[in-house]
Each structure stands twice: as structure tokens, then as C-alpha cells.
């Protein structure tokens, strides 16, 4: 029978789950993915609500199961009504799990960010773990803590939540840990977590690249036209710089950014040329202003893709921010080796999956 691990909690789950699955596949195991309860963040052309994380993992791994199997419960608005059909919902969740687990060595289940979701109707994350006989592991995002020691309190809360539901929280992964927290986490917090009777499967340092989208993702979200270097859309975008200053001043900002998307108006020829000089990941021209030919010539020369979008600069930047928090199949595949390297280096994945 397949072993299963349920990873739930704060930001960063999808990317690491993808890494774990990929790692297992590379090691010769058969691995499945399941996200029984998810939040609707995206509407397909078929008007069906989906969680983009599910679509990303399905596409990146080429999973055969349809989205409805991988993600049966998609929360849109109402929760209370689900109570009336709780048995049916539970049955679907178990049935889908079984069909995914069929013939697999491992199933990694992605949980909802908060443990209390659906607890009012008796389907909290603890209930879910119990239902699927899965090992629950909590993911903590260290970066968003003002005081790093808060991590302990949070874990304590989750631990109690599980105890209340008569199931045991197995362990934690501390993700997105800034350098200045690292020592405190390793020397003080990890031993304290172990004293609570929990496993610590890894302390992953802050790595902005893990969440970085590709230029192709940006093309999609901006509905942009690619004017030059169509073959370079796999560049990763880790930084956003708006070009609105005089060219000589702008150079100063462009030079500091690494793998940047530089956003400016198509009519700012001098500025775009200065931007291209620093070889960013992409230059995005806003307001549907078609650039001067010299811009395209230079772009070709340095191999930087140029996008044209009809959005204004402000909206463009907002959309870029959004895309940074959405995982896509393209970005997962492009960053695959980096993600796997992170899993290898930062996670005790064998222990997490009980592989001897």
C-alpha cells in the first residue's frame, strides 16, 4: 500500500511538494499527488473553479488523473452547506485517494493553508489525515514572523489542535528562513521543537528563486505580445524594476537588479536601450506603445525578450506581483534542478517519507 504524507500549513508547499515528487520519481519510485481540499483561485474557460497549484503540478509532472480527481473539493464561497453531504464528500475524498494511490509507492497530499478549514463540519486537516491514514507535517514560513520565536507558539497551537482531534501531528518543515534567523532556528528552536515530541524534517533557507515565475508565465498573465526573442521565454524573473527616470539615473537601478523584469513605456527608447545594456530577463513595454526599431535590434543583439502589453505600468506591476505568488507548470519545470537541489540539501526527505 502507498505511504502518504500530508503537508499543510504556510506558504511554499507546492514548490517543495513538486520537488519531493520529482525526487521520488528520479529515485525510481511511483509517486502520486493529491490535494483533496483547495481554494478556488482561477476559473477555467469551462467555468469550473480550480486551484492553479493543482494544474501546475499536474502539467509539470504530466499526471494522468483529471483535475477533478486530484482536487475534488474546491471551496468557492459556501462551506456550511457541505455538512449536509458530509458522508458523500468524505467518500469522494477517500475514493479519489484510492484511485490515485493505486499502484503507487507514495502519495503526497497537499493540505489547505489553515488547519481549521472545514473543521466546523468535521473535516479539519486532522480529520483528513485520519481519514486517509496519512502522516501530517506542518510547514512554517519563517520569513513572515516578526519575532522568530513565534514559530514555537504556532507549532504548539497546531499540535494541540491535532491532539484535540485525537490524531498526532508528526513533524514540521521550517521554510523560507532568512539568514539572520538561521542560527536562532537551528540552535534554539529546532531542539525545542524536538522536545515537543515532533520531527523537524528541514530548515530551508530563504530562496527567492523558488517562487520566481518565468517570462512565459508573464506573457500569459499580461496577455502580452512577444516582439523579440520568442525563444527566450524560459528566463526566470526574480525582480521587478519600473523604468520611469532619466536614462542615466535608471542605469543605476537596472544594474542592481538580478534577473529582472524591467517595465517601461514603449516610447522610452533611450531608457529601454539603457535597460537592455544590463541584460535583464525581460523588458515589458506598457500602454501598447510599439517601440522604435533600434530597440528591437538591440534586444536581438543581447538576447533579451521584449513584451508589449496594453496594460498601463501600474496594472502591469500589480499583475507581476500576483504572478510571483502563483506557481505554474512552466516555472516548476524550468527551475526543476534548482528545486531538486534544494530538496536534497535542505530536507531530510528519506526520513519524511520513511525510506530506510
Amino acid at each position: 500500500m502507498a505511504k502518504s504524507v500530508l503537508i499543510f500549513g504556510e506558504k511554499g508547499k507546492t514548490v517543495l511538494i513538486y520537488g519531493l515528487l520529482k525526487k521520488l520519481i528520479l529515485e525510481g519510485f511511483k509517486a502520486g499527488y493529491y490535494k483533496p481540499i483547495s481554494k478556488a483561485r482561477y476559473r477555467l474557460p469551462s467555468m469550473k473553479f480550480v486551484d492553479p497549484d493543482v494544474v501546475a503540478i499536474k502539467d509539470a509532472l504530466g499526471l494522468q488523473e483529471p483535475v477533478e480527481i486530484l482536487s475534488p473539493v474546491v471551496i468557492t464561497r459556501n462551506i456550511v452547506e457541505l455538512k449536509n453531504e458530509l458522508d458523500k464528500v468524505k467518500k469522494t475524498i477517500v475514493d479519489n485517494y484510492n484511485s490515485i494511490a493505486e499502484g503507487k509507492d507514495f502519495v503526497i497530499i497537499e493540505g489547505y493553508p489553515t488547519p481549521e478549514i472545514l473543521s466546523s463540519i468535521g473535516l479539519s486537516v486532522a480529520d483528513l489525515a485520519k481519514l486517509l491514514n496519512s502522516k501530517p507535517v506542518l510547514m512554517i514560513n519563517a520569513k513572515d514572523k516578526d519575532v522568530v520565536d513565534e514559530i514555537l507558539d504556532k507549532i504548539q497551537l497546531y499540535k494541540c489542535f491535532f491532539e484535540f482531534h485525537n490524531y498526532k501531528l508528526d513533524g514540521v518543515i521550517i521554510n523560507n528562513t532568512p539568514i539572520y534567523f538561521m542560527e536562532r532556528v537551528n540552535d534554539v528552536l529546532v531542539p525545542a521543537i524536538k522536545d515537543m515530541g515532533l520531527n523537524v524534517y528541514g530548515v530551508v533557507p530563504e530562496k527567492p528563486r523558488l517562487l520566481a515565475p518565468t517570462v512565459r508565465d508573464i506573457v500569459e498573465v499580461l496577455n502580452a505580445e512577444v516582439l523579440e526573442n520568442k525563444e527566450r521565454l524560459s528566463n526566470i524573473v526574480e525582480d521587478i524594476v519600473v523604468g520611469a527616470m532619466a536614462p542615466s539615473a535608471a542605469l543605476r537601478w537596472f544594474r542592481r537588479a538580478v534577473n529582472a523584469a524591467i517595465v517601461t513605456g514603449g516610447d522610452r527608447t533611450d531608457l529601454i536601450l539603457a535597460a537592455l545594456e544590463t541584460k535583464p530577463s525581460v523588458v515589458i513595454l506598457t500602454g501598447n506603445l510599439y517601440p522604435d526599431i533600434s530597440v528591437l535590434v538591440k534586444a536581438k543583439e543581447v538576447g533579451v525578450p521584449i513584451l508589449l502589453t496594453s496594460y498601463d505600468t501600474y496594472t502591469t506591476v500589480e499583475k507581476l506581483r500576483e504572478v510571483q505568488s502563483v506557481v505554474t507548470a512552466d516555472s516548476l519545470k524550468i527551475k526543476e534542478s534548482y528545486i531538486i537541489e534544494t530538496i536534497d540539501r535542505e530536507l531530510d526527505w528519506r526520513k519524511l517519507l520513511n525510506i530506510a
Partner: protein
Amino acid sequence: MSRNLELLFKPRSVAVIGASRDPNKVGHAILKNIIESGYKGRVYPVNPKADSVLGLTAYKSVLDIPDEVDLAVIVIPAQNVLDVMEECGRKGVKFAVVISAGFKEIGGEGIEREKKLVEIARKYGIRVVGPNCLGIIDMHTPINATFGPQPQRKGGIAFISQSGALLTSILDWSSKVGIGFSNIVSLGNKADLNETDFVEYLGENPETKVILLYLESISDGRRFIQVTSAVSRKKPIVLLKGGVTEAGARAALSHTGAMAGGATALKAAMKKAGVILVSSLSELFDIAIAFANQPIPQGGRVGIVTNAGGGGVVTSDLAILRGLKLASLSPSTIDVLRKSLPPMAAIYNPVDVLGDARADRYRVAIETLLRDPNVDALITILTPQAVTEPEETAKVIIEMSRLYIEKPILSVFIGGEKVEKAVKLLIDNGIPVYDMPEKAVAALSGMVMYRELREYLAKIAESIEVYDVDKSTALSIIRKALQENRRVLLESEAKDLVKSYGIPVAPTKLARNEEEAVEIANSMGYPVVLKIASPDITHKSDVGGVVMNIRSDEEVREAFRTIIINVRRYAPNASIYGVVVQKMVPKGREVIIGTTKDPVFGHIIMFGLGGVYTELFKDVSFRLAPLSLYEAKEMVMETKAYTLLKGFRGEPPADIPSVINTLIRVSKLVTDVPQIVEMDINPLFVYEEGVGALAVDVKIVVE
């Protein structure tokens, strides 16, 4: 690859590929121009559909020509150019002028086509002018391989232009104003030969006296400076650069990166190159006319002779504005003038010979001034009054010019028909003549500038070597940052880097946590400063990332926490590497030394008042790296900061040699390690004479 372009301008044989029988076609105009320019070599039209063009036997292909071909002028549709270039290569053609458009300038497929064009040229060793150009002219060969108008006058002016259309109109206009050319080059897309190649050749060409450039871009800034600085010692180079706006130079002047660049970089670079930079087309040619026939003045003291008081006043004002000096005439000159001129005449410079002056009165005034050792150059102004003798006066000027060959004479004949003949006479005899005083003044100031530039080049030629540097340490610091995917160095790294080049820094170390910070503080000794270490934060104090004057372990811990909390609040997206601990150093006089890498010319070095004063006074000087000792000294001396350093109001003088030493070392650093694209040492604390200087904050961006 040979850089000698002799056979391009003086080919023994020319093939015109795409020579057409249709007079409306460019391929026809070019062949016609070659023939009509009086070209003495052999001409071969190539046209697969004609047996003869303009009376010459035509060939189906360049390969069919039963002779060697030095120069091929290609004027066929772009899509056929590559095939023809292959043929030229097999034929052994040495130079190709590709007139055809449809290359890089159209983008897309044109870019690819141009790349292939260069590949073929390299393969066969053909040097290419263009594509997308008007062609070339050598008036002394003579050959006109353009489709522009036929220039009438040969002379010493070479004109290299990146704009073909501009060239056409200049050619048309030049005949009217009497400009004599030696060479004309239309650069086009500069796929192979660029401005520097031509400047290098024309520098050696005895028929060229002055080189004019109209450029929109400079292909290889470093080589351009290297070549022009050598050529400009022999003959003047005048540049009109299109696409320079002052907007960049006026931008917020808080850091080197913002201050240098664009116009500033261009100016600094041209100073180093000895190139005269002008800002208008008319200035370009006004200066050229003067250089073409007149000697370089020994100084900037100008004498003015006029028959109109107003003309004299206006010219004087303009001359002063342009940085020229009005010569103060010697007592003997004044004496002679007083005796020879009517009592009403103004005998002090400008010399007014009055409205009723005939040629003889001009002669006295001109000759007396030219004899005066206090006069380096002369401007003669003539306005046609009732008894004025324009032609006779012109003859006097011509005669004087031949007698006093070491002093330039420029003339201003203001008027229309009344001065027409005189003007022509002057032109024919090589006297620069202008219709307005401002043009003559611009021309003369250009000549004086050239003399100064030439002297300057000699002064800065002496290079200074610094040996006690540790390049491998510098490189390893940069390598580490790039491996961590950072372009901005942490303050501790930046300081270690400049320290490896012998620049003293305030001791600084990175602490990743509170305990480490306490340890470092203890090893340095209190008081210390704590500053945030993040590549994403440029203005540390703006985000609450700096705590000064820390005196105990407890204060270090407190400051560490405060900084992290502040920065996370005010710059939530910044990635934080920890906090740097820096030893508090005694306050000195604050200056800034910075550098930014211009995409075209390389590193520009800046010096000025440091700290908050940088932004307040914008008191800065710029030079292109590498700096000579002379330049470094000059940079310090031309700012107000110098007054401060020398000791203002009873203050003892500061250690100026240590500032110059730092400038030289920064120059050495960026020359050795060009990966540094931006650097600011701000402030550099300068202590009293003999005590030295200390870099308190250093920012470095690498690529």
C-alpha cells in the same frame, strides 16, 4: 586584418554591381558619378541584363570581369547582396561599399542578413563600408562613389557622417559656401568599418587637414578614444554627436551613477581624446573652414578690426562668452594706431576703423594688430557702408594672411549682394569668411580649444603605475557575490575590495546574528556603528538601518534587533544578510569618490564634496579612467571641495595627496577589474595633512 584603407579611397579598379541603365535608379547615379568625378582607374558595370551601361561594357557577374577588382560598389536589392558578396569574395575584391538598404535598420530578418554579410566579409577578408549608406568620395583621387551631388571643390576637410541624407544636403550646400573636401564617408550601419577605422586612416592621409564627424553612436568607445587621442595630436577632429540630451546630465545629482553618463561621459571622453565637441551643424563647418586654411593660434587673445562699432561690441561679447580673451594691445601698437587712424576711431581693441574706412585704413589696422605679440588671432569685420571697398579690403586681408602666416585671420563680411564678390575672392584664396560674427567666434574658439586640447594630451600622456594591489582578492570577492546571485556587494565586501587596492577603510565586518555582532564589536573596541547588510537597500538610514555611537554589548544587541525590525517593516521585500559592524572613526572633511561604467566609453571617475553636500552643491568633476596624475590633481583642484581641503578660514590644510592617491587607486581598480560597474566611496573622511584619509562607506555594483 589590414587597417589600411588606401585602396578603398584610391582603387585601381571599381566594379559597380547593380549598375543600371535607368537614370532614375541609384545604380545609374553611382556609375555616372564615378565617371563624372574624373576617376582615372578602370570601371566595370555589373548587370546581368545589359551589355553596356553608360557606354561601358557590362558584365553578368563580378566573376566575369577580366581584371582585378579593388573596390566593389554594391547597389542591388538586399536579398541578393549575400550571394554577390560571396562572388566578390571568390573574385578577391578588397573593399565593398554596400549601398543597399534592408539590413539591421529594418530589424528582424535584416539583422540576420547583416550578420551573414559580416561573416562572408571576414571569411574572404573584404572590408565593408555600410550597408545602408550613401557611399564614399575622395576628391583627390578623384572618385565619387556615392549617389549624392558632385562636390565642386577639393580641399582638406574630411567628413564622416552616420546620416546619409544629411550628407547629401551638405554636399549640395558646400559648393555654394566654398567648402573644399578631401574625403567623404557615409558610414551606414557600420557592420564592419566604423568611424574609428576612418579616423585612423584619415589621420595618416596627407590630403586631410581636419576631420569632421557626425555620429549618432560610437561603436567601440575605448578604441575610438585610443585612436582619436593619437590622431588629434596631428590634426583636429571635430565631433557633432546626435542624440545627446542634457536631461541626463541634469538628473538628480546624488551619486556618480546619476551624475555621469550620457552627456557627461561624452564630454569627459572627448576631453581625453582631444576631440572638439560641437553642438550644431553650422558650428561643425564653421570650425572646419577655419582649420582647413588657417594656422593654429598660439593662444586665445583675439584682436578685432571693424568698420562698425556695433559689430565690434557684439563680437567682443561673444568672444568673452566663448572663453576667448580680448587682446590688450601693446603701447607701441596703440601709438601707431593713434597716429594712423582718424581721431574718432577706437584704437583700443576692438579697433573701430569707422564707417568711412576704405581698404587702406583696414590695412594699417590689420597689419599693426598682426605685428603685436599680444595678439594671437584676428577677426576682421566688414559692413558695406557708402565708401566701403569690400573687394579691395578682401585683397588686403589675403595679402596680410600670406605675410603673417603664423596667425589665423578670420573674416566676417556682413551683407548680401554688396559683399558677394569679395566673399568669393576670400573663399578662393583660403580665407575663412562668415556672414555673422558668432560663426567666426565659434570657429576661433574651436581653434583655440584645439591648441589647448593638444597641450592637454601631452600633459596627461604620462601614466602612473600602482603596484601594491591585490587583484586576486578583488576578483574572488566579486566571484562570491555573483555566485550568490548578487550584483550589489555588501558593505563589508565592498570595503575589503577597495582595501585590496590599497585604499584605507574604516574597519567593518558582517555579523549574521547578535552574538557575532557583540564579538566583532568587542574585538574592534567601542564605539561602533551598526548598519543593515542588504543588497536591496541603497539608502540605509532611510529604512532605519543605521545605529550610531554604540558603546556596550547590550546596545549592540538592542541595535541589531532594532535594525532588523525596522528594515523588515520599511523594506519588507529586501533580502537581509545580517548587520555590519563598523568601528566609529573620527570625523574628517567629507568628499566623495565614485565611478560608473559608461556603456560606450567605460569608467568615468567622479570627485566632489561628500556626504549631504554632494546633492546640495553638485560640486563635482569627472574624468575618464585611467587617470594620469595630472588629471587626478586637476579633478581635485577644479572643485569647491578644494577650497575646503586647502583649509577654509583658518582650518589647517587636509591631506590632499591622500585624496589624489585614492583617485589613482580607484582608477587602477576599475581598469584592472572592469566587472565593477558602479562604485561610491561616500564619504571619504580626509584628515589633516599627513594623517591620511579613510573610506567610511563604500558601495559597489558588479556585473
